[in-house]
C-alpha cells in the first residue's frame, strides 16, 4: 500500500496503490482531505487498487461530500477492475464522477 501524489493539468492526483483496507484507509482519507482543505481539485486514481473495502469507500465518500459543499472538483480516475466491481455492485458508480483520463475531466 502506497500513496502517490502528482499534479496534472491543474488537478491534484492522489494515486492509491495496493489494498485499500481498514489499515490503509485512514492514510488515504488524510491525504484526500488535506488536499481538499488546501483548495485543490482532487482526482483519486485507483488504477493500481487491488482491493477496496467499505472503509476505503468511506474515505472516497467523505472526500466527495466535502467537495460538494465547497464546490471543488472531486472524482475518481482510471479505476481498476477490482475497484470498479465494488463501485458498481454498490451502485456507487452513480455517485462518483469517474474518468478514464485527466483530459476527460475538462469535458
Amino acid at each position, binding site marked *: 500500500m502506497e500513496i502517490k501524489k502528482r499534479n496534472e493539468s491543474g488537478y491534484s492526483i492522489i494515486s492509491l496503490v495496493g489494498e485499500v483496507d*481498514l489499515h490503509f484507509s485512514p492514510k488515504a*482519507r488524510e491525504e484526500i482531505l488535506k488536499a481538499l482543505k488546501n483548495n485543490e481539485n482532487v482526482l483519486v486514481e485507483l488504477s493500481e487498487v487491488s482491493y477496496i473495502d*467499505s*472503509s476505503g*469507500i*468511506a*474515505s*472516497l*465518500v*467523505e*472526500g*466527495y*461530500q466535502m467537495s460538494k459543499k465547497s464546490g471543488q472538483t472531486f472524482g475518481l480516475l482510471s479505476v481498476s477492475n477490482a475497484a470498479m466491481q465494488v463501485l458498481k*455492485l*454498490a*451502485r*456507487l458508480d*452513480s*455517485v462518483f464522477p469517474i474518468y478514464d483520463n485527466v483530459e476527460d475531466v475538462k469535458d
Partner: protein
Amino acid sequence: MTGKDTFTVKPADLPAPPQAALKILRACSRKDINNSELAELATHDPVLSTELLRIVNSAFFSMPSDIKSVTRAVNLLGQRALRNLVLCISVRDSVRQNALPDFDISSFWEDTLRHAVAARLLAEHSDLDDDECFTAGLLQDFGLLVMCFLQPSKASVWHDLRKLDPDQRYEREQQVFGITHDNLLQILGRSWSLPDELCAILGTHHDCKASSLSDADNRMCKILYLSDWMTAIFNVQQTGDCLRQYQSLANELLGLTLEQADTCLAAMPAMVESSAVALGLHIQQQPDFEDILSQANERLAEENMSYQELTWKLENALAEQDRLAAALDRELQVAREIQTGLLPSRRDSRFPVIGYNHSALELSGDFFDFFELPDGRIYFNLGDVSGKGVTAALLMAKTCSLFRCLGKREHDPARLLSTVNDELAETMIRGMFVTLTCGLYDPATDQVQLVNAGHPPALLISKEGEITELSASGPPLGIMAGSQYTIEKTSLSGGCLYLFSDGLIECEYAPDRVLGVSGLAKLLHKLHDREPDELIKLLFSQFIAQAETLKDDITLVMVEKRTPHA
C-alpha cells in the same frame, strides 16, 4: 594522543632524593657493594640513619630485639630492604609539606600506603618478595605526586582523580596532565637510579596483560595493577562495581579465589595504619573493610530497591490497565446487549422470516429487522454499516430505528429507503454510509417487493433450484440526498429469498479462498431443502468454526413461505 596533549619533563625540574639516599640507591645497584660500606653511606646522613633505625624498630618490622646500628639493620634486613627503606623515606620527603597548597597530601599518602600494603598482601599469593612489592606499591603512584609538583595549577584535580576507578583515572590523567603517572615514573626512576627492572615494572603496570617482561616481573606488574583496584574500592562511589571488577581481575591475573581476594582487602586497613605509623606519615583512621562491604551492599540494595519500585509501578499500571479494560468491557457488553435487543427475536416456526447475526467484534455493524404491518405484510431488511465498533453500532441503531419508525407509515419500500437515505445523508459524518436491502413480503400472495441500496445482491433460489441475483438499484444510504431506488417484484413460489452481509461472501473458508456470491449461491442451493435452523447451523459451521480469524460480521436473513410441520 596529539602533540598538544603531551607534557615534556625536564629532569632538572624533578624532585631529587637527599644526596646520601641517592648514594645508597646507586651503591645498591652495584654487585660488589658490601653491607658495611652501605651502612657507612647511611651513617653519613644522621637524619637518614636515625629515621632508618626508627622505622626498622617500629611494629611494622616486628624485629625480635632493639636494633641500635644501621650496620646491624643492614645485616638483618639485607641490602635490598635497606634500599627499599631509603626509597620510602626519600619519596616521603621529596615534596615539602606546603609545596602544593591545593593538594591534599594526607589523602595521597593514605592511597600510597594502600597501594604498598595491597601489593604486599598480594605478594603472598604470587611467590614474590613482600618487601619488594611493598616498595613498588609505594612508588607506583609517586608519578602522580611529581606530576602535581611539576604542574601545581592542576594539583587540585587529585581530589577527583582518586574517586575514579583505575582505568578511568588513567585516561583522565592523560587528558589533564598530558602524561600518566607510569610514564613519569620511568623518567623519574632513571634520575633516582632505580634498578631498570623496577622502572620497567612501574612503567607498564597499567598494561600488565600485554607486558613483555619476565614472568616474575610481569607478576609484580599485575600486583601493582590489582593494588590500584584495591585502593580504588575505598574511594570510588560505585563501591560494588569496583569490588566486583577487582574480584574478577584478581582471579584472572593471579588466580585468586573470591575468598582470597576478600581476605587481602579485609587485611588492608589495619596494615595501612601500622605502616603509616612506621613511616611517620599522618593519615586518617582507616574505615573497616566490613563497612566498605556493607556500603557496597547498601548501594546494591538501593539499586534493587529502585528496581523493585519500578516493578511495583509497572504492576500497578498493568492492574490499572486491566481495570480500565474490564470497565470498557462491561460498557461494551451493555452496548452489545442493547444492540442485540434491537434485533427482532425469533418467531414461531410458521413465521416466514428468519434472521441470524454473528459479530466479529463486541459491537456489530451488521443488522437485520422485520416487523408486520396491520395488513399482514411483513417488512424485512438487512443492513451493513461502513466501519466498525462503536461508531458503526451507533449508526446501525439510528438506521434501524428510522427504518422501523418510518416503515410503519410508508408502505412503499423504495420511497421508504429514499426517505431514510435523505435523513441519514443530512447528518452523516466521516463518509459513513449504510448498505441495505429491504423488502415487503405478502404471505397472502407470496409476493416480495425488494429494494437494494448499494448492498450485495440478494439471492432468490426457486423451488426448482434456479438462482436469481437481485442487485442494487441505487447507492448506499447516507451518501447522497435525493438518491432514487427502484422496486424489484418477485414471487417466492416455494423458493427462498436470502439476504446476507458481505462478511459471508468475503469470509475466508480456506486460506486465501473466499466464498463469493456464486459460491454462496451453490452452497445455499445444496442446503436448500433443509429446515431453516439446520441450514443455518450447517452454513455457519463452515465459518464460525474459524471465528478466531473472522474479520467481519456475518448476517443472514431468509424469507420463505412456511407451513407448520406436523
